[in-house]
């Protein structure tokens, strides 16, 4: 087995920004208030992922999931510790990453693909797949600023899933799409997983994590609370608690489609 992702003792400190002017800082100082605050978004996070594993990253809001993904994707660097990855990474941190509202869908596809490391030739070859998957029809040649939020999200997702990658990161990707598109996305992500790509999937939906993932990592306030079996991980978070109204609703409605709560 080849190690795909190696996270070692990663901690990330953010300083709270109060966006104060000098005058406000001076007043705060006179009153003896604190001027600067910091908090740890990630604390001593360590794990290894083997190539081809499908990780479900779970945790409550504000537990550090997106921050961790940003480190793996290479957008952020840790305050201490190291992150190492193997091969090309693709994916989405929230939807519609980096689209320019005044440019057309086509232009944005090329731009986004280039940011993810694709060449013009690669994008040319994949263009029909990307356009087909996004399924925005004749809107492809109009500015994406005119798109509905669903179309916007679809376009972003279809670029990301069509990049030939070794690690795929999916964060809250299905939050905006409609039911048919969610189904299509889940299917596509299963294909990606089955082709041997390492999958990093963030979701609050227990059902879809069960379906997609082989391992669950739970973050709690920036610390790894659980790392292991899928069902145990979901149990750890009490997401399988049937008395929980939310969980019940989720299971009966769009739980199986992997909707984000």
């Amino acid at each position: 087995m080849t190690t795909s992702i190696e996270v070692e003792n990663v901690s990330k400190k953010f300083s709270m920004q109060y966006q104060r002017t000098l005058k406000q800082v001076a007043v705060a100082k006179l009153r003896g208030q604190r001027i600067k605050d910091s908090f740890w978004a990630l604390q001593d996070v360590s794990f290894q992922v083997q190539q081809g594993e499908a990780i479900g990253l779970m945790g409550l809001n504000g537990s550090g999931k997106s921050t961790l993904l940003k480190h793996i994707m290479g957008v952020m660097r840790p305050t201490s510790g190291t992150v190492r990855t193997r091969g090309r990474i693709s994916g989405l941190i929230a939807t519609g990453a980096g689209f320019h509202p005044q440019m057309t869908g086509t232009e944005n596809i090329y731009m986004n693909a280039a940011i993810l490391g694709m060449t013009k030739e690669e994008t040319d070859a994949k263009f029909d797949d990307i356009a087909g998957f996004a399924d925005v029809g004749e809107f492809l040649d109009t500015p994406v600023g005119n798109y509905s939020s669903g179309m916007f999200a679809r376009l972003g997702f279809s670029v990301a899933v069509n990049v030939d990658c070794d690690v795929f990161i999916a964060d809250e990707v299905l939050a905006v799409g409609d039911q048919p598109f969610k189904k299509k996305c889940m299917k596509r992500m299963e294909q990606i997983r089955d082709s041997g790509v390492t999958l990093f999937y963030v979701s609050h939906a227990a059902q879809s994590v069960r379906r997609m993932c082989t391992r669950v990592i739970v973050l709690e306030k920036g610390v790894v609370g659980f790392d292991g079996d899928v069902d145990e991980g979901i149990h750890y978070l009490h997401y399988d608690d049937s008395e929980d109204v939310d969980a019940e609703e989720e299971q009966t409605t769009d739980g199986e489609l992997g909707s984000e709560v």
Partner: protein
Amino acid sequence: MTPGAETPEGADATVAVRHDLDHVPLVDPAAKGGLVGVLRRRYLLKLMVRRELRARYIGSKMGLAWSYINPFTRFLTFYFVFGIILGRGQVPHFAIHLFAGMVLVNLFTESFNSGTRSILQNKAVVQKMPLPREIFPIASMLVSLYHTGPQLVILVGACLATGSFSPDPVGLLAALLGFGIVILLGTGMGLMFAAINVMYRDWTRVVQIFTQVLPFTAPMMYPYTLVEKRFSGFPEITHFYLFNPLAEAVLLIQRGFWITTISPADAKTAGAEWGFKPGLHTNFPDHLFERGLIMLGAAAVFLVFAQWVFTRLDDKIPDRLV
């Protein structure tokens, strides 16, 4: 362009080897930054420059024609105000004197200003996608450079319209040297302040004020000879004045595109009130070229320094973009 050449990992990292990753090393996923990192992503850089160019005139019916109309109007204004209303005959072809300098000063202030704002403006991408962040100020510089093209066309047109334009290779070389200095310096300033501006937003304002003052520090709204004349008792001040790389660059482009439009007959009849001298090349400081080459070297060193500052701040950029 060979396929795969644009991938951050290098030429042989095509994904045909996806299931055989043993020979691919575990690396830091953060994009390799630095100017070198940007040069490796030329295709992305090209797309970004094109996007900026298109975005500027998007929705307008005249499109790129605006980048000709704008400088042309400016030249006509210069011609009427400075050439006809003010000091006609004092300095021959003063409008060209001013416009030639303006081409370089505009290039500098535009790369500086737009470079400073570039990362903040693209924060949606910067927060979500891994890429060498130097690419934004560099794209801004290239966009500014592209807009210099139409201005040069107007400049050459104005030179030709004088009827006495006789460009020489040395003059063209001088102009090229002037461009070199401004490009290196503009890139450096844009790069450095793009990062600083993320940390302290006040710098957008500071840079704006600074670039408003800048045009007055170069000899274009007044001739260099006037500076020499005013401070004739204190040559140190003139010497100090020439430490300004922008002043040097403006003198260099004037050597290429202004002094070469003045015929010897015109030079003799010119008024001496502004210090203009009939011996054409005595209207420039001594050792113009040596000074230019030294400035070019200094600008290159500054660019390296700017990259160093950027690298030091780079890791904090995504944390501070809110």
